[in-house]
C-alpha cells in the first residue's frame, strides 16, 4: 500500500494560509462579538483582535503549572512580531516574515559529549518524553524590555534524566541550527555562527528551566524558536537558545555567542540583576511591552525564591 508522505501532498491540496487565517479571524471575531454582546465588555479584544488570532497547530492535553505567574499575558501579536532572532535579521520586526518558510520537520537533535549514550533524537520523540505543561513566565531582554509568555513544554531535566549524562558532566551546551540558506541573518558576521549557549548542570536541572516547543497553547511559531528551544526565565533572553539541534554535556564552561562577541558586556551567567548594569545602559528598570511607564526589574527576574540558592556565595558583579 502506498502511504503518502507529507511531501507528496500537492500544494494545490493545501488550504492557503491566508484563507484559513481569515476563517480563524472570522471565527475569533464572531466569538468575540458574541461574547461582547453577551457581556457588554471585550472592547480590548475588538480593538486588537489579532491578540486572539493564532496561526499554529494546537497542542493537546496541556496541563497548568504551579510555576506560572498570574501577571497579564503579553498579546500574541507582540510576542510574534518583536523578535531578537539574529539568525534571520537584526531588526526585531523582520523574523516574523523571514522565518515563515523555515522547515521544522524533519528535525533531529544530537545528544553528545559526556553522556552514557550518544544519540540523535527526533524532535517528535523528545516532545513525547513528558506531558506538556503551560508555564506562564516573565521574559526579560538584556535590552531593557520584557514580556509575559504562556510557553508550552516541560522541565529540561526530563530530557537530561533520560539521556543520563556521566558524573563528569558539569555543564550543558545548546547549539542552534546553522543553515545559511534558510537563515539569511547567518550570511552576515554580526555574531559567531552557529549560535551557542550554555548552562551549569544544576541550572539546567532546576525545574524552572524549560524545554519549550509551544506557546499560547499552540506549536511555537518559527520566529519564536521552533521547533525546540529552551526558556531560562531568570536569565536575560539571549540565554534561551532557539531552534536547537545539539545538546552537548561537558566538564568545561561552554562559550556563549554573546560572550564571544562582547565579553565585557555579556557574561556566561547573565542572570537578570537590577543591581548590575550593562556597561552601556542601566538594568534597574524595564519596559513591559504594552505599558507606558517603566517598572522596576526584579532580582533573578522575580524567580529569586527558586534560583537564588544556585548562586549563594558567588560575587554576582564578577559573575555577571
Amino acid at each position, binding site marked *: 500500500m502506498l502511504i503518502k508522505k507529507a511531501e507528496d501532498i500537492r500544494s494545490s491540496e493545501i488550504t492557503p494560509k491566508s484563507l484559513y487565517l481569515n476563517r480563524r479571524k472570522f471565527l475569533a471575531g464572531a466569538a468575540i462579538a458574541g461574547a461582547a454582546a453577551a457581556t457588554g465588555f471585550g472592547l480590548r479584544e475588538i480593538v486588537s483582535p489579532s491578540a486572539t488570532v493564532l496561526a499554529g497547530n494546537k497542542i493537546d492535553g496541556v496541563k497548568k503549572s504551579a510555576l506560572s505567574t498570574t501577571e497579564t499575558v503579553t498579546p500574541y501579536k507582540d510576542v510574534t512580531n518583536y523578535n531578537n532572532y*539574529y539568525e534571520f535579521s537584526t531588526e526585531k520586526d523582520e523574523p516574523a516574515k523571514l522565518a515563515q518558510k523555515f522547515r521544522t520537520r524533519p528535525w533531529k537533535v544530537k545528544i553528545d559529549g559526556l553522556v552514557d549514550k550518544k544519540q540523535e533524537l527526533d524532535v517528535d520523540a523528545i516532545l513525547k518524553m513528558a506531558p506538556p505543561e503551560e508555564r506562564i513566565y516573565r521574559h526579560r531582554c538584556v535590552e531593557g524590555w520584557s514580556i509575559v509568555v504562556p510557553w508550552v513544554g516541560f522541565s529540561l531535566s526530563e530530557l537530561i534524566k533520560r539521556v543520563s549524562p556521566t558524573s563528569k558532566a558539569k555543564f550543558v551546551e545548546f547549539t542552534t541550527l546553522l543553515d545559511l540558506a534558510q537563515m539569511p541573518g547567518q550570511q*552576515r558576521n554580526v555574531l559567531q555562527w552557529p549560535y551557542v549557549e550554555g548552562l551549569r548542570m544544576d541550572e539546567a536541572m532546576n525545574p524552572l528551566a524549560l524545554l519549550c516547543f509551544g506557546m499560547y497553547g499552540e506549536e511555537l511559531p518559527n520566529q519564536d524558536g521552533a521547533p525546540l528551544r529552551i526558556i531560562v526565565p531568570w536569565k536575560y533572553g539571549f540565554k534561551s537558545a532557539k531552534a536547537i539541534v545539539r545538546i552537548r554535556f561537558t566538564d568545561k564552561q561552554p562559550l556563549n555567542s554573546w560572550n564571544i562577541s562582547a565579553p565585557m558586556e555579556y557574561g556566561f551567567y547573565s542572570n537578570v540583576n537590577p543591581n548590575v548594569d550593562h556597561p552601556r545602559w542601566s538594568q534597574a528598570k524595564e519596559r513591559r511591552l504594552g505599558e507606558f511607564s517603566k517598572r522596576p526589574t526584579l532580582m533573578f527576574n522575580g524567580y529569586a525564591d527558586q534560583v537564588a540558592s544556585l548562586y549563594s556565595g558567588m560575587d554576582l558583579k564578577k559573575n555577571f
Partner: protein
Amino acid sequence: MPRYLKPVIFLACLAPLGYLIWRGLHAQLGANPIEKITHSTGDCTLTFLLITLSLTPLRKLTRQYWLINLRRMLGLFAFFYGTLHLMTYVWLDKFFDFHEMLADIAKRKFITAGMTAFALMIPLALTSTKWSIRKLGGKRWQVLHRLIYFSAAAGVIHYIWLVKADLKKPLEYAFVLAVLMLCRITAWIGARTATVGKVSASQS
C-alpha cells in the same frame, strides 16, 4: 530658486514626523512604540544633519548656487528632530528623573556623545538668524557654525556606541559623513595651495 520650492521642501521635511504620527494613531508602531519613536527621531536627526552638510559640496558640484538658501531651514530641522529625540529620552525613557539622567550622562558613553551632539547644535540654532550673522560678523559666524561637523561626528559616535552587534546602519552614516568631510578637506587644501601659489607668484 523657484518661489514655491521652499514651502514644498518645508512640508517634505515634516513628512517623517507626519508619518510617525500617522503610524502611532493607526497602531502601526509595532510592539514597542516608544523604542520606534526614539529610533525614528534619532535617524531623522542624523539624516538632516548630513543633508545640511551636503549642501555646500552639492552646490559647488552642480553649480546650483541657490541651494545655499535651503541650508538654514534644513539645519533647523536637524535641530527640531534632535529635540524630539532628546524629549523621548527625557520624558518617555527617564520620566523627567534628572538625577538619573545626570548619572546616565556621566556614566554612559553613548549618552555623553548624544548629549554632546545636541548641545553643539544649540548655539547654531540660536544664531541662525540674519541678525546674528550681522551681529557676529560673517567670519566669526562661519567659524562658530563649523560646530556642525563636531555635532554630526558626535551623533554618529553616539549611534556606533549604542548598538549591540550590528554596526551596519551607524557605519552607513559614518561613511556618508566621512565622504562629506573629505569634500571639505580637499576644498580647503585646494583653496590654500591656490592662495599660497598666488602669494609666491606675486613675490617673485
